[in-house]
């Protein structure tokens, strides 16, 4: 059984069909990349996995999405717990304009953790996990907006790590960062892969090739091809995938 399974997943914004019967399985503790041109449903697909699409009016979803074997669109799903288990990193770093400490501990407090000792320990361990502890241990009260873009994105990952999710969804996490910062975030992803299952949306194909073990290619709401990254990039089976990765399209 795969950690994430979707079966015939379709999504409509009003009358527009943004996802067309997507079926794919994502294995645990691997990095899976979703590539494709802008507006082809990659991010929409990602947002189905933590039900962030629920926040948009007029969205209708059919098909099945199961995480750990359980359909997350069942009526009795605990949405808050789902989002604790499935964390999301956004395109633009979006730390809250609060202190570094408050950012990291936000999720724990939201989910009812009040024990001071546990909070302090989690604060340090989460920041260590993203290699921010040494840089920021004397600046825990600093407003997070004063950090650099890369530090902000790391902080966003740290505040998710504090919740120990099973899955990290990353929606173009490096597109607002420069190449050096991107490299550091990618290195971090590689480390985190041991602890979390990572699904990353990117339209940077080199990034997909560098960091991921499996790749899916989305085009106009369809999943054209899905498989091992090395195979997708060396021997794509579909003409459209080949066109895209060789730069003839998109």
């Amino acid at each position: 059984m795969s950690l994430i399974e979707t079966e015939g997943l379709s999504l409509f914004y009003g009358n527009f069909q943004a996802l067309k019967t997507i079926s794919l399985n994502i294995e645990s503790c691997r990095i899976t990349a979703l590539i494709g041109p802008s507006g082809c449903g990659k991010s929409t697909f990602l947002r189905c996995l933590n039900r962030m699409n629920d926040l948009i009016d007029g969205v209708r979803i059919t098909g099945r999405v199961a995480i750990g074997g359980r359909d997350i669109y069942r009526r009795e799903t605990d949405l808050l717990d789902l989002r604790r288990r499935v964390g999301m990193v956004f395109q633009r770093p979006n730390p809250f304009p609060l202190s570094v400490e408050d950012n990291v501990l936000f999720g724990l407090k939201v989910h009812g953790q009040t024990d001071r000792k546990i909070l302090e320990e989690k604060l340090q361990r989460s920041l260590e996990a993203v290699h921010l502890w040494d840089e920021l241990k004397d600046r825990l009260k600093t407003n997070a907006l004063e950090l650099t873009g890369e530090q902000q994105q790391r902080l966003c990952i740290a505040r998710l790590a504090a919740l120990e999710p099973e899955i990290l969804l990353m929606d173009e996490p490096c597109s607002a960062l420069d190449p050096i910062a991107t490299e550091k975030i990618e290195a971090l992803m590689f480390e985190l892969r041991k602890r979390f299952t990572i699904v990353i949306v990117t339209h940077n194909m080199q990034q997909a090739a560098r960091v991921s073990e499996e790749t899916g290619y989305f085009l106009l709401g369809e999943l054209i091809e899905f498989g091992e990254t090395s195979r997708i990039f060396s021997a794509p089976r579909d003409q459209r995938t080949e066109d895209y990765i060789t730069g003839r399209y998109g």
Partner: protein
Amino acid sequence: MTGLDRKENFIRAVLLLTAFSAVSVLAVITVFIFAEGTPIMFRRGVGGFLFGLNWYPGEGRFGLLPMIVGSLEVTLGALLIGVPFALACAVVLTEFSSPRLRNILKPVIELLAGIPSVVYGFIGVVVLVPFIRETFGGPGFSVLAASIVLGIMILPTVISISIDALQALPPSYREGALAMGATRWQTVRMVLLPSARSGIVASIILGMGRAVGETMAVIMIAGNAAAVPRTPLDPVRTLTSNIALEMSYASGEHREALFATGVILFVIIMVLNTLANASSSRRARGKRG
């Protein structure tokens, strides 16, 4: 010089003149109030004005402390009553209501600001004052009555500026919090309100300015006795009421003392405005960062 240049210059001169006339009116008012009000303050001692307890203009005693305390008490009362409602309303309208409801309610709330203050005073006299007299005792004309009416009068200011502050927050804050499994209320309490704090503080300070400056409604319901109120049920006279009540018949030193009242009011309002500006410009800087 071409005809076009001449026309441009002419238009510019006219616009400049118009722009400066607005500023110069303010300057003239300021100079006038200070010129009329400060001499008596220095002649008789600033301390006597600020801390004197007795206001008997006929005997030449001009203690403004009751009015200063009265203004501050009534304003504080208005904030205690109005701000919680206003913030709750702003939060509901931005975070918990459909766009349709918001589009109906926000203009209605802003309409509150357009009701003449004498109407608020009238309702206060007819409904609120008798109610307080019968329920809590005392004359009814009181700090409490004035605070309640002023609390209602500051609602539109505080609500609409707080709504602006909350709506100006990037949607990514809200998304980030919800994506971590926070409830809507946790998101509001732990992320949105602290993030919009400076805008909300500015709205409260502007509401405070409105409460300090309000005259007509207060005259009608506060009782206007020039004594420091001992309980919220005692009558009270504010700085603005003091000027409005006595200006029509004052002359000589009495008239000057009323201008001195104006000077003190002016200073209080300037301080409040400066605080509001400082707070909202900090917000602007925070956004850029």
